[in-house]
């Protein structure tokens, strides 16, 4: 099966793999935390704001056969359900969802993030399927620990980016306290992905303006709000000015709001510049050079002309969007469906080339064409 209206290889920026039971992860946790975890009944999952999934699962239900392997836990299932049928040339594995890095004990959170990275390298990224790539998960609550983890694994050829899933300090990522993370990522030319806006886990970060959303529907609708603020903050407080090679990638927030954000920031350019010495270019220009955004969940309007109208407010947005499936979650976007919603001239960029130019692929041995970075 090939992508509708697009025949080429696909890069999938957001696939969720998982270790399953905690006992599978424990061997990768460094001492002394391994002993602590083994000896305690404590869950590795941090507290999260309570928006429980209907039917008690975040998986797409028809991917699950009773008695069969759980999607995301099993490589063969991933190959047969995602990689092979949708011509996925490269998939970035981003844990399910890496929330262990938001544990309220910050030191344990950092240890768990390292353990997940080692587990992923050992069980998925070294099996010889060169379609599989990974992200270096870091706990943002201890920025120096996060920077150390990036430096520990930053040169590994199969790690193509950094991943953060929580802002446990309750501050937008442009805040200087997080800057050691960007500095380390910059040294290795790694983009930083923020999954899900990063404020579901932990008590500190507000999930939305105006108070906690009152239902899952409202929560999911307002989901892009933290991402909007993180982008705004990184632009305003000089992340891209200090480290021009750092790209910020937003995952699982949809993307149709990005033209509005770019233009509304432009309107505040003179105010932003007054309060920050780091805002030198129009924010929309910085977004085009340093921000990338995944398509999932794809939220098409009733009339596709309306989508094209809205996207036209940011010229060049076709260079910024990247396909993601979110396999194996309940709202997977299939590559075929997504490709055909865009103008034909955009499809190769969105389904492959933008991601090819955003992530730090290995210089040789990458599946498909060699990496070519423009930034």
């Amino acid at each position: 099966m090939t992508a509708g209206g697009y025949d080429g290889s696909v890069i999938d920026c957001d696939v969720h793999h998982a270790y399953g039971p905690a006992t599978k992860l424990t061997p990768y946790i460094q001492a002394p935390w391994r002993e602590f975890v083994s000896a305690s009944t404590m869950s590795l999952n941090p507290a999260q704001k309570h928006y429980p999934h209907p039917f008690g699962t975040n998986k797409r239900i028809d991917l699950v056969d009773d008695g069969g392997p759980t999607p995301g836990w099993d490589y063969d299932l991933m190959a047969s359900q995602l990689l092979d049928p949708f011509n996925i040339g490269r998939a970035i594995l981003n844990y399910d969802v890496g929330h262990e890095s938001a544990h309220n004990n910050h030191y344990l959170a950092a240890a768990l993030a390292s353990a997940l990275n080692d587990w992923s390298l050992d069980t998925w990224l070294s099996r010889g399927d060169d379609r599989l790539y990974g992200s270096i998960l870091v706990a943002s609550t201890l920025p120096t620990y996060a920077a150390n983890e990036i430096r520990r694994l930053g040169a590994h050829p199969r790690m193509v980016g950094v991943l953060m899933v929580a802002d446990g300090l309750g501050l937008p990522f442009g805040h200087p306290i997080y800057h050691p993370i960007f500095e380390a990522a910059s040294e290795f030319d790694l983009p930083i992905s923020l999954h899900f806006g990063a404020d579901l886990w932990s008590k500190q970060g507000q999930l939305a303006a105006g108070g906690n959303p009152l239902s899952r529907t409202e929560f999911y609708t307002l989901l892009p709000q933290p991402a909007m603020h993180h982008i705004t903050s990184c632009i305003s407080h000089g992340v891209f000015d200090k480290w021009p090679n750092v790209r910020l990638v937003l995952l699982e927030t949809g993307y149709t709001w990005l033209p509005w954000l770019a233009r509304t920031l432009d309107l505040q350019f003179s105010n932003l510049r007054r309060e920050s010495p780091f805002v030198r270019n129009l924010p929309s220009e910085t977004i085009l050079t340093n921000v990338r955004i995944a398509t999932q969940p794809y939220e098409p309007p009733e009339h596709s002309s309306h989508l094209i109208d809205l996207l036209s407010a940011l010229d060049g947005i076709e260079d910024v969007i990247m396909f993601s499936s979110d396999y194996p979650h309940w709202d997977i976007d299939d590559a075929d469906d997504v490709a055909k919603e865009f103008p034909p001239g955009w499809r190769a960029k969105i389904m492959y080339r933008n991601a090819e130019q955003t992530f730090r692929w290995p210089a040789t041995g990458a599946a498909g064409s060699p990496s070519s970075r423009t930034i």
Partner: protein
Amino acid sequence: MARDWCGGITLLKNDMSGASVDVGSSDEFMDRIFRIVAIDGKEFGVLRWGEAVYVVRNICPHHFSPVCRGLVRESAQSEAPGTIVLQDSPIVICPNHRWEFRLPSGFAVRSRHSIKTYPARIQEGRVLVDFGARARQA
């Protein structure tokens, strides 16, 4: 509760129009659980709901996913915020994006789409389907 989506009851009949097609004994179909049958290369979900039986073409209008491989639940409705009233009427929930569809009409609860449904009944212990017509739109 076991779920059986692996049904592949291939019938020899090629002609699905006109007279009722026998898709099996009623006790082969568990109450409130879809069983997929394949007829003429096409998949259909057969759902027993108490004494009634519903048949649905196993394709969701949203993204053409196998709509019968999701869940079936009672209808949940409300006229007053905070109250949820369940009715003994089946709702088909697609596994992909979880859209909900009413039976027997097939209409989506929250959009203008619909799934294809076919009149069916249990007669003398057999499930009979009339593929030649759409189910009455309720």
